[in-house]
């Protein structure tokens, strides 16, 4: 039985869900026996392979590159998990949405509080275009499982992954497993 191809990615989030994944600690040894990390921030792969089995997508969609990446992740994976509250609801990053003029968000950081060469960055390779609104990933792609939590605890991540390893996709139940925050 060859190993399950696991990939992870962080979009408009804080990386806390990935840190919670690493809080699986020594269980990572057990995971490594049944799964192989084929893409993600902790591995050096530069391209998403085409045959990903399970894709953990952390973070909201805040800019056009997030949008491109989540669509690519969807295209190249069988089972896509909205990993953490930012991916599931948009969470803290969406606080930007209630500000009417998005440009003021940039102006505060790059004009008002800058001492030298105040300008809005936008060089060719710099900064992907901000989306007008920060949105959760299910507004862009079909999500197979929502894993809430900010971040979901390592125990909750383990429960979800064990479900998938055993090839049944029953939803998690109980307050310990499905709680925001």
């Amino acid at each position, binding site marked *: 039985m060859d190993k399950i191809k696991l990939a992870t990615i*962080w*979009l*408009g*989030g*804080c*990386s*806390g869900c990935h*840190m*919670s994944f*690493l*809080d699986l*600690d*020594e269980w*990572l040894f057990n995971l*490594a026996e049944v799964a192989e*990390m084929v893409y993600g*921030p*902790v*591995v*050096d*792969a*530069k391209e998403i392979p085409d045959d990903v089995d399970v894709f953990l997508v952390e*973070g909201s969609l*805040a*800019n056009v*590159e*997030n949008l491109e*990446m989540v669509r690519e992740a969807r295209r190249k994976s069988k089972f896509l998990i909205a990993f953490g509250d930012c991916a599931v609801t948009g*969470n*803290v*990053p969406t*606080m*930007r949405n*209630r*500000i009417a003029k998005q440009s*003021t*968000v*940039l102006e*505060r*950081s*790059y004009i008002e*509080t*800058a*001492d*030298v*060469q*105040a*300008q809005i*960055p*936008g*060089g*060719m*390779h*710099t*900064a*992907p275009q901000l989306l007008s609104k*920060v949105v959760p990933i299910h507004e862009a792609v079909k999500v197979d499982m929502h894993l809430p939590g900010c*971040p979901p*605890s*390592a125990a909750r991540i383990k429960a979800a992954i064990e479900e998938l390893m055993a090839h049944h996709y029953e939803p998690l139940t109980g307050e310990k497993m499905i709680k925001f925050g």
Partner: protein
Amino acid sequence: MPKTITIDPVTRVEGHGKVTIRLNDDGSVDQARFHVAEFRGFERFCEGRPLEEMAGITARICGICPVSHLMASAKTGDAIYAVKIPPTGEKLRRVMNLGQIIQSHALSFFHLSSPDFVFGLDSDPKDRNIFGVMKADPDLARKGIRLRQFGQRVIEILGGKKIHPAWVAPGGVRTPLTEEGRQEIISRVAESKETTLLALSIFKGMLDQYKDEVEVFGNFPSLFMSLVGEDGEWEHYGGSVRFVDSQGNIVADKLDPMNYKQYVGEAVEADSYLKFPYYMPLGYPDGIYRVGPLARLNTCSHIGEGAPLAAAELMEFRQRGGGTVNMSLYYHYARLIEILAGVEFIERYMDDPHITDTRVRSIAGINQLEAVGVSEAPRGTLFHHYAVDADGMITKVNLIIATGQNNLAINNTVDQIAKHYIKGPEIPEGMLNRVEAGVRAYDPCLSCSTHAAGQMPLKVTLIGADGSILDEVTRG
């Protein structure tokens, strides 16, 4: 044929970084730049929120160092309340902050950078990661995982959650340490010290193997800044700001964090969402300064009382590095020494008779309308500056983030490495990994630095001398 190479994404760093390397017609490197491609705008969207929410919101700037934001935010809150927090409240905050320094530095050394040391910079990218280390050296990987777990457990025992605990608050902390929690922390001290000393011996053993990398991986003079204690000792929570120059002379001392605007300026460059802080009196870019583990060990006069092992290591660190250390690869070395100091100081706090006292929070209201809270995040000095109205609603926020202050230094490092290793259009993968390893030395938290996190780490795009994209070198 002139080209520009973009390494995009930079892997095994936290957040989203991109490096572009512009080549001259003869293939030599004209310039290499480090860009950060993400923005969320915490400074703007926190306006109108109540002061007491700020710790919970700003923690979500970063999942690796949320505790730093909790600390800086709560200290800003203390100053706005104009309240003195109970002594045990401060001691517990310090224990949690040390727990974070341990877990974050262990992550950087074992999970993110050890693959470069275990497999070598030119090794196959496929196994050059924590899972590769788990296969090649399971014992080392397990020890590293357990060391990070120790730091995370300290945070969880105190705050109830390993990441984003809702525990630090203006006026102190919400819940005291239980005796049971104290016992568990004590029970893991010995193993943590042992693992850290092992990692130190491994790293010191490799210093001669990486002799020439040490010379060119971000080896240049700069100022260094960090908090230091009352009599100049290593400090991670309180104290005042000190700048030293590349020879170790104190340039400015006992600076009040409240006046950071007088000594920390911020410049903007067109090609990055990451602003460029500099030491104001020397102007931009001459006022370049580095923060974080290397800076803290350069600015402090001594490690402080109660950490004999770390004190001995600091002396050897300075002997090996030539007094004040300007070589950025020594950031890895400094992180290990800081883990050791963290474990020793936590051990000392656990012996403090008052550590399980239950009076851990002072209650007060809005007494000041503006304040600055500062703490040492694993990656460097972090400033939170809030203004509030009479009801305690935030009217203005400015955040000077740890990693951002190394932006100039990271750019210099990337430029130095690229110019040394990259010759001509064909660029072997190992060379690109050296540029990334230069960025990794700073253990940058890009999610923090632009108060944002975005797309994947480092990819390489070739740009012609005329600026047009000619080719995209991607690997893996």
